[in-house]
């Protein structure tokens, strides 16, 4: 504390004693700071505006990142970019979780969002070494289930500590996987996701066709329907992280969280696990343009609430959502014809005969995590209501039949 006071005091003294805000003066206190070559010739105050008795951080979004945007005006859009606002995610979380936990987003999702230019443009947490971000910087957030890690050959792992091993990136363990061919050839994320594109709210600046023209001599390419109706990644994505059932267990009061100590704990109140999560060939769906594209669960959220010694909610399914996505695991090699044309499972077409897993026996209200139709006719917990409804229905049918029978000439009895 003493040291800080001293620094602040000297700082104020310096400011008062001199009107020149040249670099040397800042350096008297901040002597450890060296600015990277690109910004070396600029005086500190060019970026750091005065505020009160001192200066504001240059790159913070909450100050409008004025220090940076003064020169880099064309990236002003970053202040409104999805990476910063996370509007869609917040909206989704609100829809799904709000009635069970209004603070869900703050507790479990707050870890990843851009708040400052230097979140990406620093070098090893050194804010003044301003650099063009490499792929590893993106992985600070884009790890585990989120696209980015897959590009570098990092797959997901199961949630239990038995499987928490292998390659650790941003506090998450990953499975070694075949990386994207573009990564192997040395392309960083920025090659396709330029600053311009991010600042203008686009997902990318380049798509496959900007660089590649499909060779029609390749058998699969010679089929017109393939090129017209399918995304390249539908065949060329080698694998994708897929999580069936995202289980959230919320603990309130003196509930025993330690019963679940072997699985992940994203925040103090929560444990998180999944029915199955691994890296596999992606499922296929249809996007809004009618194109066949990879899809994956995002998310089948299942919520349990344990308050003190009782279970208030048990495996309540809050959402059963599959989402279109672009696996960044592109290879020259592709999945074989039969993995689509002979494989109902790829399209989430539910087939009871070939079913192996029985989630309905495990306490789930559906028969499969891979069911495009997702329907269970008679849920256990609704059995009484079902029987009651069926009885009423049967009653009505019987009465109708009787009524029909005594119509017209049969009704002569009354005369």
């Amino acid at each position: 504390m003493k040291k800080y006071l001293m620094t602040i005091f000297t700082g104020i003294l310096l400011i008062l004693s001199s009107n020149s805000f040249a670099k040397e003066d800042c350096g008297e206190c901040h002597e450890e700071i060296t600015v990277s070559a690109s910004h070396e010739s600029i005086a500190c105050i060019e970026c750091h505006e005065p505020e009160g008795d001192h200066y504001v951080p240059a790159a913070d979004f909450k100050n409008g990142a004025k220090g940076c945007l003064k020169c880099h005006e064309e990236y002003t859009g970053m202040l409104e970019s999805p990476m910063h606002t996370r509007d869609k995610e917040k909206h989704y979380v609100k829809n799904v979780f709000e009635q069970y936990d209004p603070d869900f987003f703050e507790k479990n999702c707050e870890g990843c969002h851009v708040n400052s230019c230097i979140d990406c443009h620093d070098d090893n947490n050194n804010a003044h070494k301003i650099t063009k971000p490499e792929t590893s910087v993106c992985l600070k957030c884009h790890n585990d289930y989120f696209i980015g890690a897959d590009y570098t050959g990092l797959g997901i792992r199961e949630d239990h500590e038995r499987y928490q091993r292998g390659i650790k990136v941003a506090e998450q363990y990953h499975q070694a996987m075949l990386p994207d061919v573009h990564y192997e050839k040395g392309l960083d994320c920025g090659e396709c996701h330029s600053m311009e594109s991010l600042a203008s709210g686009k997902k990318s600046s380049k798509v496959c066709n900007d660089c590649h023209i499909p060779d029609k001599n390749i058998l699969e390419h010679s089929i017109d329907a393939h090129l017209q109706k399918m995304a390249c990644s539908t065949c060329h994505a080698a694998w994708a992280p897929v999580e069936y059932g995202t289980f959230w267990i919320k603990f309130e009061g003196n509930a025993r969280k330690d019963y679940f100590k072997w699985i992940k704990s994203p925040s103090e109140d929560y444990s998180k696990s999944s029915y199955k999560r691994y890296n596999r060939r992606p499922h296929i769906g249809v996007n809004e343009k009618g194109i066949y594209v990879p899809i994956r669960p995002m998310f089948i959220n299942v919520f349990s609430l344990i308050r003190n010694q009782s279970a208030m909610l048990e495996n309540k399914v809050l959402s059963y959502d599959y989402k279109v996505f672009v696996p960044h695991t592109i290879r020259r090699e592709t999945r074989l014809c039969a993995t689509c044309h002979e494989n109902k499972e790829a399209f989430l077409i539910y087939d009871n005969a070939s079913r192996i897993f029985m989630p309905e026996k495990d306490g789930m209200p559906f028969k499969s995590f891979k069911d495009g139709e997702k329907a269970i006719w008679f849920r256990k917990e609704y059995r009484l209501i079902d029987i009651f409804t069926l009885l009423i229905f049967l009653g009505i049918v019987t009465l109708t039949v009787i009524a029909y029978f005594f119509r017209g000439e049969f009704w002569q009895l009354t005369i």
Partner: protein
Amino acid sequence: MSFLKYLFILFFVVFAYNASPSTCVSCHEGIEAPSKNHEFACVECHGGDNTAEKKDVAHKGMHGGRNPSDPAVWGKTCGKCHQYQLDRVKTTIMFTNTGMIKNTQKAWDDFEGELYATKDTVSYDVKGEKIDIKPIAGGEKMADEVYRKFCSACHVGFDRMEGYRAHHSAGCAACHYSHDRSGKYLGNDKQLMGKQPYAKTHEMNILPGDDVCLRCHNRSGRIALSYDGKYDGNNSLVPVSGIYPGPELISGVRNIRHTAVDIHKRVGMDCIDCHTSRELMGDGYVYENMYNQVEISCESCHGSGDKLPETKRITAENAPPLYESRYYARQIAYGTEMVLTDKGNMFSNVFKKDGKYYLMLKRSGKLLEISTIKNTDEHNVYGHDRLECYTCHSKMVVQCYGCHTIYDKREKSMDWIKGKETEGKFSEEEDIRLYYPFPLAVNQKGKIAPVTPGCQTLLTVIEKNGIKSKDDYIFDFKKGKNFKFAPFYGHNTGKNAVSCRGCHMNLAFAGFGEAIVSTDKQNITSPILCEKTGNPLTALYSIKDGKLNRFSQIVRDKSDLMGRDMIKSMIKANLCITCHEKGDDNIYGEKIDYEKILNDDIHRDLVNIK
């Protein structure tokens, strides 16, 4: 005469119960009789002094404490009457664990040609040669230690008194007594009520139920789980069950979830309805491997494409089915035409009557008609005589990929064989658990069968100073750092087989994992990698520039990878399967001459083969 016999028995029972002034039951009031045949004085089995009033005096000299069937004393107790059974059990592979020990040593590159067992075993092998197997307690290699500290908790001679749903007593009681999930006694003896570790009650299982098999067979191959339509998943502990991890728990805080149930279980069959007593309790000979002791296969009951099950009529009064079925719900009669096991022994509950084959459930007496497959087209497909039945009829085969074993010399752990804590502790981590599809290779019989990692061990050794002297070390096996796969029947049989297309068009069955293919570059690879070697983890091979690379091998003697030609013919069959979808299509009965058929009048215009 008969009257006299009963009078004698009555006299004996009365004498045993009342005439003897037993003080045992004055404390253990209400304790159950083990069975009708065991209604005699407690001291007959337990030893001790049944005239003493004080507990300490009465309990002095008891055989084996709470468990008189413990191998340390079983010669004086169970073996006194059941000499024949005891002599067999002493050499059964479930007691000696010879195969498990040998394969652990082989997997860890520690095998030096010598066999070991849980105890010093001197007996005879099936050729009549005398065999002296050394006790594993003397083994000094790391493989011996991992067996003693990990695997040995599951053998018939081990008194396992901890772990939820994992208790079993040593010796005969391992199978013939049931234990509650909690390990507590829940019978009527007021002294023991609620205490642990004890058997669930004092009543014995004359015919052991599946619950006792599950006590051990819930790990590694996990066949007791798979058979019952269960799997211990990914330990994810969800879906929750109330305030606890769910849906069900088993030892090691693993959660059990549900799969399709084995077809045999679905019709009511227990483990013992297939497995004969000679397989479980041994037949008196020492065997090196489990598969040598096993005497049954699917074909023993269901026949094969060209043969019906073999039978033999009971013509001797001492034929095993006659005395083995004595405590079944229904007894086998003299003269019955019994079905034979692969070793030519009679099943004691499978027989032929009026041209039909039946299996009788041992515990309930219910008859099940067995369908045989002789002369069915789908079982006479050319080349498929090389398949095991369960190659097509397995619904799932549990596969644990990447077994990262850590040996930490800084810590201590229990050596179950030596019965004391010693230096060094093993722990395990895993990469991936998969179920379907599963890779195929050639098993010890020369047949194409499912294989499962067995084991993909990567060993890390942490020395006392904390330095890793080995880091994810892969042992040498069959000339090189190969991953090991073992032929395996997963015990999750389905009536519906994997379809022709499902197998021939899915390269995972051929051993290429989650295959991705470039016909142009002639590459086939699989994306899940071993971080140590960089090779595909879930595949047996890959193809690069048209060249087949092997990085896995099959562990058993005489077993092997399918190899180039077999894979080629498996994939080539797609030329026909694309149109002729079903195995019962009669075109598959003989060898396909692709050149001739595809160039005939019908096919010439459809395909263009070069």
